């Protein structure tokens, strides 16, 4: 466990950089819509990571601009993207079979809440007037070998988002293996929540502010 107390909390790029750093070489990776998309900017070519987009492509390249925009070539966030050499296209049933069948090594998702046991809530606030919309979130959460979550550690109202039990409707059960926040990286393991690194805070401080037991922290 490393406590980076010589720096403040991570900014968004800092979080994305660390997620990228931790993706094993040669992985097949799906980056969720929004914040996780930024991880692509920090993947090193020598990592040889292949990006999957669930609307039917492996070997997705960076966002397309100007003349490179092709309305038939978009990512899951409906942003125009590009194609890398060695890419392939497939239909939706094949794309989600790839995911459900456990062939994706890592997916990176945002979250409203993650529970200590790996339960994920990221699709619905539970608000009575919200229109439900799930997209591929449940498929990704259930299908990828490793699910990394990127989120702020606390909500705007100050409540922690790493919790004993999710209060929001669930996306998947026990699926999250790592949580990247601005203050710390958490590994969710069979032995409980392990803090891997802290940023601008300490394990002890985190243990005081969170309601979940952190391995190795003072009780």
């Amino acid at each position, binding site marked *: 466990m490393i406590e980076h107390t010589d720096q403040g909390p991570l900014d968004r790029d800092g979080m994305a950089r660390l997620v990228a750093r931790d993706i094993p070489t040669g992985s097949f990776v799906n980056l969720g819509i929004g914040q996780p998309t930024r991880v692509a900017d920090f993947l090193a070519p020598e990592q040889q990571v292949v990006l999957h*987009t*669930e*609307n*039917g*492509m492996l070997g997705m390249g960076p966002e397309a601009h100007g003349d490179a925009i*092709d*309305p*038939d*070539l*978009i*990512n899951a966030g*409906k942003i125009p993207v590009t*194609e890398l050499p060695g890419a392939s*296209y*497939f*239909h*939706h*049933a094949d*794309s*989600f*079979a790839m*995911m*459900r069948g456990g062939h994706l090594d890592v997916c990176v998702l945002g979250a409203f809440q993650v529970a200590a046991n790996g*339960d994920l809530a990221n699709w*619905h606030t539970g608000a009575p*007037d*919200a*229109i*439900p*919309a*799930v*997209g*591929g*979130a*449940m*498929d990704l959460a*259930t*299908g990828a070998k490793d699910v990394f979550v990127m989120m702020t550690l606390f909500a705007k109202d100050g409540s922690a988002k790493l919790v004993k039990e999710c209060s929001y*409707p*669930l*996306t*998947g*059960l026990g699926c999250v293996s790592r949580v990247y926040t601005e203050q710390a990286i958490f590994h969710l393991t069979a032995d409980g929540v392990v803090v891997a690194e802290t940023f601008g805070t300490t394990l002890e401080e985190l243990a005081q502010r969170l309601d979940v037991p952190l391995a190795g922290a003072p009780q």
Partner: protein
Amino acid sequence: MVEIATDTDEAVRGIADGSTVLIGGFGRAGLPFALIEAVRRSGARDLTVVNNNAGNGTTGLAALLASGQVRKVICSFPRQKDSFVFDELYRAGKVELEVVPQGNLAERIRAAGAGIGAFYTPTAVGTPLAEGKEVRTIDGRDYLLEYPIRGDVALVRAHAADPMGNLVYRKTGRNFGPIMAGAAKLTVVEVTEVVPLGGLDPETVVTPGIFVDRVVATTPHPQEEDA
């Protein structure tokens, strides 16, 4: 040989009120914009529409919704920045919604075309979308039982067709087209180009013509790109 329709109105003729209409496309890629417009013009009502989304802006699927022809939407992601037409109808109780995880949606459509009676999927176990569904534990893992989604009609956009109805797509425009084509009683396809017999390499055909009933050539609709 497939029927090559002379225009989109002819291509969508005979869609009965109350039909379930599978509509390809993810966002605007692969959206059969011209066929949706033709269905709107046809006046067919009380439709159940299956698409990944529930319309954007004021054209395409949103226009079909706005004209009051859609009774129910089955999709994975209705809520978008510019899904205001659907949002308003839904909040007013004027359209039903069934939300299905995207991969279960795709697999249910594939199952319809493949003659599978039902299947067990791990996606959505333990979530609100599992409510009312049968759960079964197989090799220590829980799965939900899901049933096929069949269409009376499928509307698909592909890149090119040959006179047999064989289809190829372009990039991520492929998405739901190949599975929807197999899942409906009547499959209507709009393409940029109809090539002569022998004009498609048999190794690269994505949707064999056996799944296709009618083809119509249309230019990609201008609104497809800027709406």
